[in-house]
């Protein structure tokens, strides 16, 4: 069974430029998560989707970050414009659902973003 797929794996951009990350979750997983992980820290949830609905985006900086999950499968996270402080690893995870063991999250390899 294929795991969570993310692309690109690495991205280097200059500040004020836009950037987008793509995630394809495990087949059949209804819940999709985007996290940001700064160096030496644990992941920080940015947004959670239940199918195509964003049910928790309280930690998403909405002035520059946006996300979509059209058709309830793959998802895109965008930053526009990027700032130096956005340099981090962006992780995508998915789970079957939110009941008991179904909420076990499986992570992709992440996208490492460097903003210069």
């Amino acid at each position, binding site marked *: 069974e294929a795991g*969570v797929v*993310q692309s690109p794996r690495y991205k280097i951009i200059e500040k004020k430029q836009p950037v987008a990350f793509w995630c394809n979750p495990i087949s059949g997983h209804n819940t999709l998560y985007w996290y940001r992980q700064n160096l*030496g*820290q*644990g*992941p920080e*949830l940015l947004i*959670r989707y239940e199918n195509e609905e964003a*049910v*928790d985006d309280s930690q998403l900086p909405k002035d520059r970050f946006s996300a979509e999950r059209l058709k309830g499968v793959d998802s895109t996270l965008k930053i526009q414009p990027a700032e130096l402080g956005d340099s981090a690893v962006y*992780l995508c*995870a998915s789970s079957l659902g*939110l009941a*008991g*063991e179904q*909420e*076990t*999250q*499986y*992570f*992709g*390899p*992440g996208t*490492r973003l460097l903003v210069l």
Partner: protein
Amino acid sequence: AQSVTQPDIHITVSEGASLELRCNYSYGATPYLFWYVQSPGQGLQLLLKYFSGDTLVQGIKGFEAEFKRSQSSFNLRKPSVHWSDAAEYFCAVTWSRAGNNRKLIWGLGTSLAVNP
């Protein structure tokens, strides 16, 4: 408030030695407990999880963890460490009574170094 504490920021052990990584959580509701491992430049891999039942759970790569409700702990153990176990280890917890907006609360991680 819900919180997860990993008291040890960094641990060094010799190859072949036993290992115990500590994890404590706050909040009184029934917890769902996870350990993830992250190798350099990689995403998070699930080592093991606890939802209910036997409080001693077995995971991948020879790891096990024991849930002790009286101590609010979920410590990770391995009887004999291999050099390939060098990585960052994260404990994460969610709570069954947290409702539809529940999310994983992460510890800050423990960095494990293995001496040959």
